[in-house]
C-alpha cells in the first residue's frame, strides 16, 4: 500500500520529477558491505542476494556452515535469521 500511495501522490504532485519507486532486483554483491560478504563466507559462497520486505536482505548461501554469525554482528548487521536450504535473512531495519 505504501508503494501505491507513493506512486499515486508523487505522480500527482511532482509529475516531472518523480517516477516509480525503484524495483528491487537481485544484484550479486553490490549493496552488501565487503565485511558482510566476508562474514557470509565470501563471494563464492553467495548464490544470490536481494533486499526484501523493506527491512531485510535475503541471501542464499551455497554452504550455510561457512557463515560466521559473530562476524556479521561485528560487520554491523543487527539481526540474522537462518532459514532452510541455506537461506539467510539479514535484518537491516528501515533505512
Amino acid at each position: 500500500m505504501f508503494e501505491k500511495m507513493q506512486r499515486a501522490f508523487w505522480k500527482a504532485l511532482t509529475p516531472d520529477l518523480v517516477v516509480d519507486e525503484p524495483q528491487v532486483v537481485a544484484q550479486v554483491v553490490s549493496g552488501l558491505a565487503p565485511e558482510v560478504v566476508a562474514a557470509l563466507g565470501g563471494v563464492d559462497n553467495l548464490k544470490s542476494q536481494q533486499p526484501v520486505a523493506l527491512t531485510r536482505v535475503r541471501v542464499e548461501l551455497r554452504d550455510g556452515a561457512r557463515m560466521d554469525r559473530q562476524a556479521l554482528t561485528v560487520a554491523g548487521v543487527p539481526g540474522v535469521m537462518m532459514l532452510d536450504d541455506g537461506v539467510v535473512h539479514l535484518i537491516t531495519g528501515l533505512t
Partner: protein
Amino acid sequence: MQASGHAISITDENGVQVLMHIGLDTVNLAGKGFTRLVEEGQQVDVGQALIEFDVDFVALNARSLLTLMLVVSGEPFTWLTPPSGLVDSGQPLLSLNPVEQTSQKLVPEEGDAVFSQPVTLANPNGLHARPAAVFAQAAKGFSASIYLHKKQESANAKSLVAIMALQTAHGEVVQVSAAGPDAEAAITVLADLLLTGCGEAVASAQVQAEVQAKPMEAQSLTVLRGVCASPGSAFGQVVQLTEQKLEVNEFGVTQQVERDHLSRGLAEASQALQQLCENAKGSGQADIFKAHQELLEDPGLLEAAHVLIDEGKSAGFAWRAATESTATLFKSLGNALLAERAADLSDVGQRVLKLILGIRDQAMELPEGAILIAEQLTPSQTAGLDTCKVLGFATVGGGATSHVAILARAFGLPAICGLPAQVLTLANGTQVLLDADKGELQLDPDLAAIEQLRTRRRLERQRQQHELAHASVAACTRDGHHVEVTANIASLAEAEQAVALGGEGVGLLRSEFLYLDRNHAPSHDEQASTYSDIAKALGPARNLVVRTLDVGGDKPLAYVPMDSETNPFLGLRGIRLCLERPQLLRDQFRAILSSAGLARLHIMLPMVTQLSELRLARQLLEEEALALGLTQLPKLGIMIEVPAAALMADLFAPEVDFFSIGTNDLTQYTLAMDRDHPRLASQADSFHPSVLRLIASTVKAAHAHGKWVGVCGAMASETLAVPLLLGLGVDELSASVPLIPAIKAAVREVDLADCRAIAQQVLGLESAEQVREALRLHHEATVDTSRVLEN
C-alpha cells in the same frame, strides 16, 4: 483470528484488547505461509504461540514483515524491550498497565466542547511517553470527555497511547478541548499543565511569560512572514478554517450491518471524489482526488477496518482507527513525502467518516473577499469552496508540494505557506493584506497600501498584455546587447509552446520525462524519435540543450534499481549514476545523436563534480558518435550545480563548450539547506551573495576561455534577477515556458552598463534579503522612472 491467519486479536476478562497484524499487505497472501495454532474464541495463555508463519515466503511475497501491535482499548503500556531494540522470538515486548478507571467507552458529549488557547509545546521531544503519561493521568481526573488537538488530528486526552500517537514535537502548537460538566476546569488545569511541561523540566517561568506575551505580540505585530506559495496579492478579511471533530460510537450493531454501513460510506465517498475529479480545475487537483479514490480501495486499509468490525466495533470507529493508525505509521517512517501524505489519509478518513455518520458537508458560507487561514488546508476543505469569494490563502504548514500551493496556482490566487502559528489566532473578519510576492501578511494595512496594491494589480495586467504582444521581439537591452532567452521544457508540447511564446531555443530539456511511468527502458527508436521531433519543432537555427538523465535516490527511476541512500541529495545522482551504468548513458547519447542537424544540438551533463566525470562522459560520447559515423560532435557542456564545479570552473572551462548554472541545486548545496524544508525554505534563496559570487566566478572563468554561460534554474524565471544575471555576464536565460515573454520584456527594460554596476554592488551585500531589496530599489530607480518619462 483473521480467516487468512495473518492477524489476531486477544481480549482479556477486563476488556483489554490487543491486535497483532503480521506484515504489510499480507492479506493478499490469502493465508499462504501462515499456520493458525489456535482457534477462534479459544482461551490462550501467556507465552503461548498463536500463529506460525514462513518468514521466507512472506518476505518474498508480501510488502514487508513489519508487524503492527495495537492496544485497541487504549490502556497505557510499558516497553520491555532492551535499549538496543533487538528482541528474540518468544520475548515479551510490552506490559499493559491496568487502569483504575476502566470506563474507556466514549461518553456522549454533553453540550458544546470548550477549547483552550493554542499552546506551544516546550518539551524538547514533544509529548513523549513521560509527559504524555502525566497529561493523560491528569485528564482522567475529570469526568468531561477531553481531547488533545494537533493540526487536523486529535487524541483522547485520557489515553496515553493516543497522545503518543499524535507524535507531537517541540514547538508544535496544540489545543485542548473538553465537553461535560467540569469542562472549564479541565481546560484550565490541562492547558496550564501543557505550558509547564507536564512534569518535564522546561524553562517554565520563561515559557509562561512568552505565552502570555503572545496575544499582545500578535496585536502589536503588523506583519507576519512566510514563503510565497503562489504569487500575487490581495486585500480581504480573515476567515479561519478548522476541521470539525467527529464523535463516533465505539460498538456496532451487528457485523453485517456495520460492514454494509462501511461499504455504503466508501461507495458514496468514491462517487463524490469522482465528481470532484471531473469538476477539478487543473489536472493537479484532479490527480489528488484520483489518488484519494485509490486509497478507498486499498486492501490494507479495508482489511484493518474489517478486522475491527468483526470484533464488534462500529463501522465509523473501525474506519477511523484504521486510517488514523496507518497515518501514524506513515509519519513514523521518517520519509517527508510519506509524512505529508498522512494528511491525505486523514482527509479521506474524515470524508468517509462523515458519510458513515450521515453528516452532510454544508457548503461553507463565505463572506466576500475572504482570505482563508488554516493550519493546513486539505483537498476536501478546498474543493467545495466558492472561489469567487476567495481572494487568497495563508497557512502555517505546507511547502512546495502542499495542496494549498497546487490549488492556489491552479486558481491563480496568491498564497503564503509557513506562517507563524500566531496567524491562527487572528479573529475572523480582520482586514488583512496578503502580499504573496513579498511573502507577507500585513495585519494592519493602511489605505495607501491598499490603493498601491490595486494600482499595482492594474499595471501588472497591462504589463502582461504588453509582454505577450511583444513576445516575438528579440531580447536586447536598451544599449543594444542581445541576450538569448530560452525555455526549460520536458515535452514536445512544451517545445512548441515555447516557440510560440518567443523562446529563442531550449536551454534545458529534462530528458527524464522520456522515462516516466516505465518499468523498462524505452527503446532506442522511441527515444530517438522523441528527440528528433523536439529538434524539428525548434529548427536548425535554434539551440536545443539536452540534459542527460538526471535521476538519483531523490528522484528514482523504476528500471534503474538503486540501493536506498541515507542522503540521496548527496548520493548517486545525475552523471554519477549514469557513469555507474554506462550502457544507459551510451544508449541515451546514441538516441540524442540521431537528432543531430535538426537543431543546434547541445548535450549537457548534470551534477558534474570531477573533471574525470566530464572526460569519461566525453569519451563515451565520442565513441558513440564514431560508431554512428558522425564527423561533427554536438556541443558538450556541464551543469554548474555543485559548488566544487563552480569553484573549479577555470579548469572545466577549457574542456567544455558551455556551462549552464542550475541555481536550485547550487543554492541548496552552497547554503546546505533543503529548499523544501518547511523552516529553511524561505532562507534557501538563490539571491544569497555566496551563490552570486559562485555565479560571478563561473562566468569569469568561462569567458576567459571564450565559452558561454546560461542559467537554467528557477532564478532565470524571476524578473527581479534579470538585471543581476545580465550584470554578472550571463549570456543565456532559460526560463519556464509561460514566463518567457516576461523575461524578454525585463531584458528590454535594462541597460547593460547599469546592470553591471548593480551586480558589482550586490556581490558585497550580507544576505539574500539585502540583495532583493537593492534590486527592487534599483528597478524602481531605473526602469520605473524611465517608463514614466517615456509616457
